[in-house]
């Protein structure tokens, strides 16, 4: 039942994270991982690079809290989260969320829940460089809606 949260400038190795999720626990029946990448376009403009700022300290607390909420909702073994900060380029990996559990329903649900809340609650901000100059990315309403749908009661499915 470990939770690993890392905020770092360096890139990460998804395969290594996957191996860490499978390690030493024969009770695990499912692993779900998500990797978010940097797109080369946004709001109709081509984006050449991205800078990610964060609120050190609060970021880790919010992510811990999101993991705690996920554990209260689903039966989970490990949770591993990595979020990068600093300068990024198109196709770079930005975020990793990996969850292991006995059954796939819990892992699918928890992984999506964690990403939806990470996007709307964790204090990260993106500034993107386009041909028109540098601009801060606006929050999306669709992300708020994605996190709000978890407020409706759901039941954990066993598979």
């Amino acid at each position, binding site marked *: 039942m470990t939770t690993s949260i890392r905020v770092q400038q360096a890139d990460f190795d998804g395969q290594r994270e996957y191996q860490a999720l499978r390690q030493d626990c024969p009770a695990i029946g499912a692993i779900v991982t998500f990797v*978010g990448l940097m797109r080369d376009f946004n709001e109709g403009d081509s984006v050449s690079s991205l800078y*990610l*700022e*964060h*609120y050190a*300290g*609060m970021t880790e*607390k919010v992510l811990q809290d999101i993991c705690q909420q996920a554990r209260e909702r689903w039966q989970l073994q490990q949770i591993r989260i990595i*979020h990068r900060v600093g300068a990024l380029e198109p196709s770079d990996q*930005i*975020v990793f969320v990996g969850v292991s559990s006995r059954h796939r329903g819990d892992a699918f649900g928890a992984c999506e829940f964690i*990403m939806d809340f*990470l*996007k*709307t*609650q*964790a*204090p*990260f*901000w*993106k*500034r993107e460089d386009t041909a028109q100059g540098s601009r*801060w*990315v*606006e*929050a999306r309403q669709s*992300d708020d809606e994605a996190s709000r749908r978890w407020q409706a009661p759901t039941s954990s499915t066993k598979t």
Partner: protein
Amino acid sequence: MLRILFFARLSEELDCREERLALPAEVSTTGELRQLLGQRGPQWHNALHSAGVLVAVEQQVADWDRPLNGDEEVAFFPPVTGG
């Protein structure tokens, strides 16, 4: 002393990332602190009252009527856009 932090668009618009401030007697909540800082000029007022601005006290998002006792870490920032 309050430790006040500004992030992302706000820190750019205010040209300030961090400052220390002795809590004035007339300020007892996060909302009153925002009002006080906003009196520094239109730039401060507009930045701190722009759509969706959030305040966190001791690294937890708070309401605008959250009481302050004067030695907290208070952060102002725009809606988050990570992930």
